[in-house]
């Protein structure tokens, strides 16, 4: 009987296999042109020799990676030491992006929960309201944020007016400004996937938990959050990954000391000071890092599922 079922299965899958390949063609084409080709280009460029005024010379070298990780002195003739500059920038970026993600989660989850628990006909309105600011270009929004956060800006004026502070607090050009900027840039990417999960959540489960003597917080922690976890993970990835590579917020709000990977890479492709292979190498390292983090998260998720299912 098992044999018959297997034969039936393979016949069916053969019938559909060729059709499926054809139907998948557009997806593969899009993926190829917009994802694989650029990444392949970056990979190739990262192994080329830099041209003095931007651009590349088609000669294979590991110089870009070497420059990233090792310090061989001004003339390249000293014994190699670890180059901390870029690693620190990477570390700072991960830290900043992580904090922005946590901030987005802390604000985004209650927001998403709030929207998902409104009556059905008003939910779309709330979602629309959330997305309105994002119809404006990111650059303009970031510049506006700079205006809001500066020493004589509306935020400080307001805090002074309330009497909470006596002197303007310095926000602009600090790490906090970068985190606020990143958080603001990517908040909807946190809200929307969580909203989608919470909307699908069966609220009878919350009633069942309350019926079994769980208070609101326990219900949230033990029932709601585990049920909407895929949305939370998706939201965190969608905020963390672009934050990691962001350059507008760090450039405009963080000032020169709060340089992040995105700015580092951007510099390499701008004007005459650029170093294309180095920029490409930094991009590849960033990409690898992101992939490692994603694989790690995916495996965590899978293990959690496995542990829960015998």
């Amino acid at each position, binding site marked *: 009987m098992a044999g018959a079922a297997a034969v039936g299965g393979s016949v069916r899958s053969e019938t559909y296999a060729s059709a499926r390949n054809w139907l998948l063609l557009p997806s593969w084409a899009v993926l190829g042109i917009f994802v694989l080709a650029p990444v392949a280009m970056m990979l190739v460029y990262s192994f080329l020799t830099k041209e003095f005024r931007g651009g590349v010379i088609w000669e294979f070298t590991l110089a870009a990676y070497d420059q990233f990780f090792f310090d061989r002195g001004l003339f390249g003739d000293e014994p190699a030491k670890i180059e901390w500059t870029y690693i620190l920038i990477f570390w700072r970026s991960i830290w900043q992006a992580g904090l922005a993600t946590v901030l987005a989660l802390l604000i985004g989850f209650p927001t998403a929960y709030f929207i998902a628990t409104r009556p059905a006909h008003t939910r779309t309105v709330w979602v629309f309201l959330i997305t309105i600011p994002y119809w404006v270009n990111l650059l303009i929004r970031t510049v506006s944020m700079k205006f809001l956060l500066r020493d004589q800006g509306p935020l400080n004026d307001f805090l002074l007016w309330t009497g909470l502070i006596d002197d303007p607090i310095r926000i602009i050009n600090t790490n906090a400004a970068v985190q606020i900027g990143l958080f603001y840039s990517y908040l909807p990417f946190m809200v929307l996937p969580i909203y989608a999960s919470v909307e699908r959540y069966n609220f009878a489960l919350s009633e069942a938990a*309350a*019926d079994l*003597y769980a208070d609101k917080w326990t219900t949230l922690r033990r029932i709601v959050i585990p049920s909407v976890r895929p949305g939370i993970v998706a939201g965190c990835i969608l905020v963390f990954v672009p934050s990691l590579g962001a350059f507008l917020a760090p450039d405009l709000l963080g000032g020169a000391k709060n340089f992040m990977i995105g700015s580092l890479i951007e510099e390499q492709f701008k004007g005459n000071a650029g170093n294309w292979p180095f920029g490409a190498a930094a991009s590849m390292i960033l990409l690898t890092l992101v992939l490692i983090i994603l694989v790690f998260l995916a495996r965590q998720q899978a293990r959690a599922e496995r542990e829960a299912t015998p």
Partner: protein
Amino acid sequence: MPGSRNAIDVCNAVKRYGSFTALQSITLSIRDNEFFTLLGPSGCGKTTLLRMIAGFEEVTEGEIFLFGDEIENLPPHQRPVNTVFQNYALFPHMTIEQNVMFGLEMRGSSKDAARRKAGEMLELVQLAQFSARKPSQLSGGQQQRVALARALAPEPKVLLLDEPLSALDLKLRQAMRSELKSIQRETGITFTFVTHDQEEALTMSDRIAVMSAGRLQQLGEARDIYERPVNRFVADFIGETNLLDARVEAADASVATCRLANGLTLDCDAIGNARPGADVHLSIRPERMTLAAANGDPWQGTVRENIFVGTDVQTVVQLQGGIELTVRTQNSAAGVATIFDPGTDVAVDVEAGAARMLED
């Protein structure tokens, strides 16, 4: 109602949704240790009443007491009652055992104690071997029993069950009926059971509250409600019946003689509003009449059709004046002898005391 030994007292409870009144002044008491059923057609407010007892719906007016303590303002997690939800609402990310342990942990049991108790409960519902599975890996009937075990585990003072059997197929439903009933007897916990299935209500309940359109129609023991329905709604909803219009001819304290539209007369127990000349309704259960060959008795008519329903045969007899009666005959050797072909004239014998006068 402090001091009362009823498990639950609902006093003049009203529920309004905006301008719509879902429950109109319900007053009823559920006794300790009994299997109590709320029975009524879809939309009559059974779930609403149950959810008010559990704490998921606010009470617009009135009070609810649990063993004498007023509870209608307590949040659900502070009420020592548990619910078996219609769609079970098992926690999908937890195993069966974790589901059953949840309420125990919330009440402060240690993990070990909770695990032990959960094991006992799963034993009780015969699912001990599935404790490590997820709810999605169980059949509907098994999920239903997990929901029951989960709700019973914290030993609630009252267990509320909202149509817990409605998603099961007929055979399983019948098996679960007796299982539920025996679990109720074993645990001694007061069960408040909601159903729209009158057969389910009759077979399981100690007492039944029949509801319709947000009102309590009648409350009593199953047999009482079946044999002495107070109004047309109850008579018609519980079991099958023949409803007849009649006028009271003569009445004393106990017996009233009623005349049907076609002139036939019938005696029945007198009830409060039976005064001579009053228009009333009578209910006669189909199994309380028998057929015989026509013999000149005025209670006679013509067989219109015979409907075979397995255990018995329903015969529609048309009396003079166009009144139709349904008569039920058991599908047994003795019964089959009194089944007549359509078109045959037959005498209808109404058992003494079979006719029941209704209040409205």
